[in-house]
């Protein structure tokens, strides 16, 4: 059908962009933290056409290839943030409890200085997410931080699986129940939003199957929202669900079981540690904060040991920022798991490299330094888990997108002509919790 062709075209068109963005670099003599193959001292990493060509000693490259002297430095995979809102203009389409059809990737803002600041903290990939205003939010975008490019399409990571935002608990209840007088107002209501959406999607899929097999002659009314839910049931979209309380986490897993969906990563999941065995048994992943708590009642009974407990119970766990401020020092956030739970160096580093890659379905491309993977690299002057570490270079697809020796003061790409000098902001709401942006302020009285 025509609309299917359009969607295929969408993917093809996506494929046309981003292929030209790649570079060649030779990183020499660093301590290479491969994540999957141990630590290699005095080792080189050669990146060619944006891919890691080889890792070893005494490598060489052509004359025109940039050489980075990493002597005394630590070379690790580019950090991946599984929960971010940096670089997008719109966070919440908060007008309905289910807005599965919208794409946050339609609102990429390559002029966002937050992306550069994230690069300055070693982050090469982020998962730009829809906010948590709706039980079923919009589809998210896994982005490569190609800061400097002005075409939003270049940020989209070609080939990355589709992902979608779900949200449980206080936020959707506050926005729709309290704020707008429509379901859901309680956790009971939230469960029914999912059941209704999935069941209606099954009906929708049936109707289209009947039409396509010639059973009816008129196509059913096109509904992109329902189509997206169908795609979730068919396993084409990974769910990333904002959640806190143990009971609601269990609720969603039970709902998903009923509809045959198993690709899920719980986000924040502050009480995940209380149901770690269940999460592991389901195969669900968890993306958590290092130590945020007490800002809402549903996180009042949480612990900074969350990541450690989940890891010890064999749940694939990552640490995310959900903040334009925290994204800049995810390496420090990961370090906190050594204090709260004694994770080893490699376990802690996995939380910001391989594990978020797995959760986003991109672990064949990024998340560790292995031959064939993308040339996404972060180079620090000290071990990244030390508080004294400062990022020196951040590479994305072999292009040096952050170089501390060439860090200009004013990195803006687009300047407002009516503003003489950039305004001073007493407080910057982009610091924390953009998850509720776009919804009436009085509903979310956090800081």
């Amino acid at each position: 059908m025509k609309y299917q062709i359009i969607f295929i075209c969408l993917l093809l068109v996506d494929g046309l962009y981003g292929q030209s963005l790649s570079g060649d670099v030779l990183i020499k003599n660093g301590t290479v933290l491969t994540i999957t193959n141990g630590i290699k001292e005095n080792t080189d990493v050669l990146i060619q056409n944006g891919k890691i060509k080889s890792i070893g000693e005494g490598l060489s490259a052509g004359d025109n290839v940039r050489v980075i002297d990493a002597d005394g430095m630590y070379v690790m995979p580019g950090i991946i943030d599984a929960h971010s809102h940096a670089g997008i203009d719109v966070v919440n389409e908060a007008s309905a409890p289910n807005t599965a059809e919208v794409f946050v990737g339609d609102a990429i803002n390559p002029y966002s200085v937050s992306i550069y600041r994230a690069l300055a903290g070693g982050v090469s990939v982020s998962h730009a997410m829809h906010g948590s205003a709706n039980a079923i939010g919009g589809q998210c975008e896994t982005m490569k931080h190609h800061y400097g490019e002005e075409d939003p399409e270049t940020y989209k990571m070609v080939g990355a699986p589709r992902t979608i935002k779900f949200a449980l608990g206080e936020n959707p209840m506050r926005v729709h129940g309290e704020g707008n007088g429509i379901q859901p107002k309680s956790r009971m209501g939230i469960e029914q939003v999912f059941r209704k959406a999935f069941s209606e999607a099954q009906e929708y899929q049936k109707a289209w199957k009947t039409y396509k097999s010639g059973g009816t002659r008129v196509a059913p009314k096109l509904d992109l929202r329902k189509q997206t839910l169908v795609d979730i049931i068919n396993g084409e979209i990974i769910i990333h669900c904002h959640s806190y309380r143990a009971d609601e986490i269990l609720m969603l897993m039970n709902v998903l079981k009923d509809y045959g969906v198993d690709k899920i990563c719980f986000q924040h999941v502050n009480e995940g540690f209380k149901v770690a065995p269940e999460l592991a048994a389901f195969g669900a992943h968890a993306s958590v904060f290092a130590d945020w708590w007490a800002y809402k009642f549903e996180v009042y009974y949480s612990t900074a040991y969350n990541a450690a407990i989940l890891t010890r119970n064999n749940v694939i766990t990552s640490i995310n920022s959900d903040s334009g401020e925290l994204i800049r020092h995810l390496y420090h956030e990961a370090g906190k798991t050594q204090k709260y739970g004694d994770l080893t160096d490699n376990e802690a580093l996995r939380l910001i490299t391989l594990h978020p890659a797995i959760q986003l379905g991109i672990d064949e491309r990024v998340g560790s330094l292995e031959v064939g993977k993308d040339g996404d690299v972060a180079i620090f002057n000290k071990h990244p888990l030390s508080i004294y570490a400062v990022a020196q270079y951040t590479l994305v697809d072999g292009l040096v997108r952050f170089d501390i020796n060439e860090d200009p003061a004013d990195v803006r790409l687009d300047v407002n002509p009516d503003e003489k000098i950039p305004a001073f902001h007493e407080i910057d709401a982009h610091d924390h919790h953009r998850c509720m942006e776009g919804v009436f302020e009085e509903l979310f009285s956090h800081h």
Partner: protein
Amino acid sequence: MNSINKIKENMRNGAYIISAIVLFLSLSISVHSQRVAKSEAGSFLLKGGTLVTVSDGTFQSDLLIKDGKIASIGEALPAGDATVIDCTGKFVYPGLIDSGTSLGLREVGSVSLTSDHSEIGDFIPHMEALTAVNPNAVAIPVTRVNGITSAIVKPSGGTFPGTAALINLHGYTPQQMFAGYKAVIMNFPSTGKRGWRDSRSEEDIKKDADKALKNLNETWRKVKLYAKIDSASVAGRKSKDGYNPSMDAMLEVARGNRHLMIEVNKKVDIESAIKWVTDNKLNAILTGVKEGYRIADKIAEAGIPVITGPVMSIPSRQSDKYDIAYANAGKMRAAGVKVALRTDKYENVRNLPYEAGFAATYGMGTDEALRAITLSPAEMFGVDDQIGSLSAGKLANVFVSDGDPFETRTDILHLFIGGWKVPLESRHTLLYEEFLERDPGVKE
């Protein structure tokens, strides 16, 4: 999958033994409440650790805690009836001080009735933060297990939102916790944008700020007049007119006997604030000071101390360098300004050593950064005879760690506040103990 089951089985077997012991030991602890084990009074001899005194250098020595104080520091101290704690290979630090928090005033951020840091009114300096501190706030044990032993708790809101107080993080009543220092808080009229959604034009912002400054000067005129009348009425044994609590709260500030903590951030506003302070001959501390690095020389020249933070914040202008907020404290210190650091939080005050760590990394250096969360604030608040360093005679606010407290992998091993040995337990650790190996596990 099988290997995981095997690991689980092994863990389970081993865990049975451990959990039995833990269960036995923790019978008195109710893991579902915020209660933690009681602190222990007594004398303690910290033997053979490396003392980072802050005031007198770093060296290996013994430290004796007795009668709530650091009784003595020296080599091979006799133990007497003190409990000996072997600190070989460990480090002893003075308890850390956070110079700006709402710890104990707020419990759950989004539930407004659990927050007591902000009251209605613009000129209400008589609102005492100390009164509203909840000594049983869940966040207090969470904070102190990371080595923070004292904190300024401050109100927020309008121009004069109230009076802040310095507390030690141990005690069952606010009075027990009070650490002997108070300051009146003031928010200086700002010419910056209030936030991302502030859509006022530049002219409107300037108009609002000019109006606010005019009101401030008028208020100050009244404050000075009231102080004059008060002095006169005391001297002449005359009675004053009426009940005026807000003005009463300003008397000591007007007389220069109590600090005014002035929150101000934008460079031009800092300049105006410095002028206002010097013109009115006030005893003030500037807080916030996000753009302090732009006029550090002027601040140093004026001799006004500064409390700044959080260090880990986003630069306030789109055109600022990415690390300018990290580097701010260090730049001011280098110019000769007396600097203390704050987290400005209520629930994650425990991150104070990491705030200092970032300041250290981006130019301040470890020594100065440590001083900014120990002796410098103690000096600023005039309580450096009590806390802020390891010196004989000071209050025993001390912790023992296995390394540099700025590093995340460092563990705090022992904690003392006012000579009490405080258990390193909090809601977070108790939940860890309960759920690391949950029993029953998954129902098969």
